[in-house]
């Protein structure tokens, strides 16, 4: 039981979730308010602050997860290969730098988006203002999620390629430069995400004025 606690935990959590969904769904249906299960209502009434702040959270957290996974993969390979071939240590730090850059992209977007966050009074605002605030909330969510997910996968891929580069370099020094080109392509992907995120956030206008 102790050794298989991963399965126990996942099954019990999943089972609890399914039970909750079934019970609440049946409650709604059997009390004649089935039409209250309404995703449209949810999307319309949810405050845009939830979307905006979740987008900012995704921007930085998913980017950092990607960077961390990348550094974990490539770092352990560099250290492992460096035992028998110490010359690879300094040159292969460039892979780590590529992974770190991914985290910095996420941080930049998060700071830019957080600077655009502003409060508005829904009771006093005109419908255009309210619509603009809702658009800003959705745009911040989209921008943050885009950047976060792109940086997550970019970081993982750069890490795996960097790990391969370190071990190949340890075996044969001439291979390093060729594998570095692969790594550069992997890193460019993260840049694409940053560009799209910046584009989306350029039209954001939150607040009363």
């Amino acid at each position, binding site marked *: 039981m102790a050794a298989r606690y991963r399965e126990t*935990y996942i099954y019990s959590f999943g089972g609890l979730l399914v039970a909750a969904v079934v019970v*609440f769904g049946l409650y709604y249906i059997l009390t004649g*308010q089935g039409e209250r299960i309404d995703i449209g209502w949810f999307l319309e009434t*949810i405050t845009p602050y*939830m979307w905006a702040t979740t987008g900012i959270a995704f921007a930085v957290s998913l980017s950092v997860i990607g960077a961390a996974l990348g550094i974990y993969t490539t770092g352990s390979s560099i250290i492992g290969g460096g035992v028998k071939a110490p010359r690879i240590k300094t040159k292969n730090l460039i892979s780590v730098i590529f992974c770190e850059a991914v985290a910095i992209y996420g941080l930049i977007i998060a700071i830019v988006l957080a600077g655009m966050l502003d409060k508005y009074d829904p009771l006093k605002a*005109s419908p255009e203002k309210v619509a603009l605030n809702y658009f800003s909330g959705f745009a911040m969510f989209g921008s943050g999620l885009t950047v976060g997910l792109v940086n997550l996968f970019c970081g993982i891929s750069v890490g795996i390629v960097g790990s391969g580069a370190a071990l190949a370099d340890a075996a044969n020094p001439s291979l390093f430069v060729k594998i570095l080109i692969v790594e550069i392509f992997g890193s460019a992907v993260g840049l694409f995400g940053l560009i799209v995120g910046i584009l989306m956030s350029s039209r954001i206008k939150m607040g009363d004025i």
Partner: protein
Amino acid sequence: MIPLTGIISLVVFTLFSGVLCFENNVPVYMWNIDTDAVVNPLHSLNAEELVGKVSLSLERKLVALFMQDELSVDDFKSNDLSALKSLAEMENDGTFYAPSVTKTTKLPEVLEAAGYSVVYVKSHQDLPTSPVVGKTVLVIDLPATQLGDLRKENLQLNSNAITEIYEILKSQQSDVVGIFTAKKNSQLQLDESRRRIARSAAAKSAPREETYVDKFYNITQDSGKLFLFFEKAPILKIKDENKTEWANFTLNVDPDITGTVVNETSKTGVLVLTYKGLVPSGPKNDSGFLTKAKISFRLSTKRGYWYINETTIDFDVKINDATFVENDLVLVTTDVSTPLGRSWHCTPKSRLASYGYYFNGTIVKYTNKVILETDGFQLQPFKVSKEKFGDGYDCVGFFTEGIWAAIILGLIIAMMLAWAISMLADVRTPDRYDDPKGKTITITATE
């Protein structure tokens, strides 16, 4: 000798105070009255003597006589009647005070004999709205004060009520004399008042109840029924565009309910609430008077749901000496869409309708001028099958949007936790060199 005189004086004193108690002497306080009359505090007057003393100074048009149930000299000493004191001090003419007057219940009759016409005022509807001609006395009964813990609160409430009513009268009449007295003395013989305090404390521990609570109205017509329920009085909030403060008017009188109830085939109906004679309330610097208000709801059904399409309001209000009259002002109603056969139910204080915007040429301006707020409201205008409301369709659902947002974000965090725990399950200790049968590896520590 000395003990004898002591006993005699004691007996005389008891008789004297006993006489005072039996005779039920009540203090009388008058303000805005220009009199030089003086009262001997050791004697008690009766109502005729009192009126005789002050009748020359009462040569005004209007006398407002506020009758409480019980009053005593001690009440004037405490701070409970401070609102009344500050009102009296504001007046130009002086005040007059008689600490013990008997038969104060006969004061209206005595004044009538002196040539006044007596009007008994039951509510604000009876207050005169135009200057009065001829000598008139308005007898206004104040709510009961009751002995016990709540007496202080009730005295304060009463003195606020006196101030309010007096201000209204002063704004409409040229000159008003105010008289404050009661039917009985609140300090009777000590053991009787103790008994009464014990009884009243046991009987009633709640403060004075609000009068407008849990009101149910219905319309019954051939085509159907309409049920309406107010848990507390709805509030009409009105604001001038240039001001920032709202004047709140509590609609705490029974309205006239009219309207047409329809069956589903005709598809529209109307509910009209007409209010008259309302009580002004609100912050002290924004007091006013709502003379009439008429609220109409246009109802309709469509595809198994009923809606409140539109709310129109007519009102006449006076705030800070400025009068506003609105006719057929269309308010924006909050989204009320309920399945047929069910009632719309809303417990918390919520805005039923408000004046949201108007189109001014090319510019749409947003100004909240009127808000109709309900506090506990239930309405079923169609398909009332039994003698009670259909199931309530609440204005606040079981899961509100905030709860959904929190659930979704909580699930995201729970997924993070799940991933973390699964990563913990992958932690392996290095066991390549473990051999239970071989020699234990030892490392000698060298200095």
